[in-house]
């Protein structure tokens, strides 16, 4: 970006924007984990973040486990494990509310 005419841009994966202090970042990780698991629940998957290991861990009921660096890779891994994309607008995700 032209440094004279741009706004400052937030670095990292775009979902990491919005938290600038270390405390905010840690809070964001844990709050995000809850939001992720709400979406994953209908697909039988579960994510875990211990706050120390970089990235997130994704678990399938069969014991499959994957370590992913960010949300984009999390949804890819979840699609592989569930056999279909985690789509917040699908009947499956919205069923049983």
């Amino acid at each position: 970006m032209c440094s004279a005419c741009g706004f400052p841009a937030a670095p990292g994966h775009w979902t990491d924007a919005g938290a600038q202090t270390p405390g905010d970042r840690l809070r964001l990780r844990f709050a995000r984990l809850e939001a992720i698991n709400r979406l994953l629940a209908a697909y039988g998957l579960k994510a875990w973040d211990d706050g120390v290991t970089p990235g997130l861990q994704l678990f399938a009921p069969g014991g499959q486990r994957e370590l992913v660096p960010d949300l984009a890779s999390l949804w890819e891994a979840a699609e592989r494990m569930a056999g279909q994309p985690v789509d917040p607008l699908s009947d499956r995700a919205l069923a049983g509310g």
Partner: protein
Amino acid sequence: MPVAEATRSDGRLPVIILGGFLGAGKSTWLRHQLHEGRFAGYHLLVNEAAETPVDNLLLSGARKISVLAGGCACCAGLPDLLATLRALCDAASGKEAGRIAGILLETSGLADPGRIAAAMAEDPVLSRRLVLDQTLVLVDSLHGVQQLTAEDLARAQIEAADELILTKPAAADPVTLARLALSLSVLNPGAMLSAAEQGVAVPLPEPVPGLAPLDLPALGRSEPILPYRLDVGRDGGWVALSTWLSALLHARGDDIVRIKGVVRTPAGRLLLQSVRRVVQSPEILPDDDEALAGPAPEEGVIVLIGRGMDAERLALSWRRFGT
């Protein structure tokens, strides 16, 4: 570059239409041109198909700017556009006489510049007061091939152009880029072709010998692309929103062509923008509305532009997973 900076002898105001598909980089390109002092004295007219304008936030370098939101200027918003242009004509011959060098219309990504030009030519007042100086159309180097293959609109935009500018060339594969450039010159042989990275002119890709242009299939009528508005609330919610949006984009990135909005986060207001699956690093906006061009952004509203969605389902899904 034939940009009329001096007043014309017939007194008509030059109009430049800046077009290009959703997310082609129109505002980014324009922002750099304004920074360099190009289009000085022009009145900027920014059109957005959605009701929540954000493009004007990027264009604080402009001296005079008006926003036409809530309808694409080539169809639903056309009466508004014509009324605004007439008002500008009045101003240009009244109190602003001699101070407006021309009008630059940044269209929404859904607009067909050809239809706007046709409407201006048909209007009895505007056809005498305005002259269409140039139609610039930006083509996204990353998504251009896909847009040309799948979207009637993308082809119509290219066909309407006097000048085509390839944006984001640095991120594209050189052969794909050369092929895109070749296809553009087949679709619109009369247009001047150039390339720009973040608004800065860069050389065109080297022609590759023996390369054939894209084989573009005939397009039928596909489902129309529509804007959807989603109220996500003013306070917080960024974590839930970014998580939900990233899943949505992963699942439906081919159908959601654009996301825009301004969201409150602990770090300040973020301007969120995506083109298909590519989300730009959110920009932090100053909290002071005075520092922004045009009207203040509507906080907590996300606009999704795409097909195959329905507003109720979006709201239901957001209530379920976002709050």
